[in-house]
């Protein structure tokens, strides 16, 4: 990063007191301290997201570092039409994708089981679905989804972005995002059938 540019004397307000818009505006004017505050605010969350996509700690760390450098260099181009975090996540995902092979990826089949008997999970008690074991099975199944689907499901369901935000992060339309999301969820549901078939503890 370049040397810090000092702007007007700014009182060191606590993170939460200074709103994001003002931090972004200061960062756009070259205030590195303001940018660092934004980075501190979001880097852990971004690292978690990128870990869930890459499943590799080092790759997630590296992608966050690269994303922050790139974001600082390009903050002048951030127009504030989206949230800062959405913009940063888009950069982070592009960085993370660099290290992942994806050219050979085929569209995921829609596993809707039409005409077959759909297994009944409904008879399981509620606590099964809240158990750590079930959640670990969900996470393990997510890790195995093809990259584009894993990313869509991670952003929308695990990270709780809206459809519009997730689509924006990926630079795709909402319809495309919804299609990946639905196929991904259906594939996960099918994978979890095995979990219940094999017995869960």
């Amino acid at each position, binding site marked *: 990063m370049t040397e810090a540019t000092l702007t007007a004397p700014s009182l060191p307000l606590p993170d939460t007191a200074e709103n994001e818009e003002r931090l972004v505006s200061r960062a756009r004017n070259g205030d590195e301290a303001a940018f660092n505050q934004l980075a501190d605010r979001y880097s852990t969350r971004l690292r978690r997201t990128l870990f869930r996509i890459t499943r590799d700690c080092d790759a997630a760390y590296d992608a966050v570092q690269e994303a922050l450098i790139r974001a600082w260099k390009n903050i002048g181009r951030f127009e504030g039409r989206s949230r800062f975090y959405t913009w940063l996540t888009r950069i982070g995902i592009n960085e993370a994708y660099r290290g992942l092979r994806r050219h050979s990826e085929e569209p995921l089949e829609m596993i809707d089981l039409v005409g077959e008997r*759909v297994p009944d999970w409904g008879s399981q008690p509620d606590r099964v679905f809240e158990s750590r074991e079930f959640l670990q099975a969900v996470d393990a199944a997510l890790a195995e989804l093809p990259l584009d689907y894993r990313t869509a499901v991670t952003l929308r369901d695990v990270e709780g972005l809206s459809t519009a935000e997730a689509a924006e992060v990926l630079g795709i339309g909402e319809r495309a995002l919804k299609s990946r999301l*639905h196929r991904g*969820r259906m594939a996960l*549901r099918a994978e979890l059938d095995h979990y219940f078939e094999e017995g869960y503890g």
Partner: protein
Amino acid sequence: MTPTINPIKRYHEMCRETRAKMSDLIDGELDPRDARQVTRHARWCPNCRRMLKDLERTVEGLQAVGKLPTPADEPPA
């Protein structure tokens, strides 16, 4: 010759259409007419009913996964 409608084929087509809309229903992003159609079909079709319930459980599971720690939670040393 009058074209015959294969009832099983038609039934499966309804299931396929219903299942294609389930994520949107869960996300509250389905228009009210489609939402009514999906819930009505799922009410009398046991397989679609189970599919919808299972898919809801899957999405709830994913949301809960977001609260679990990951190995990348700590900043790099």
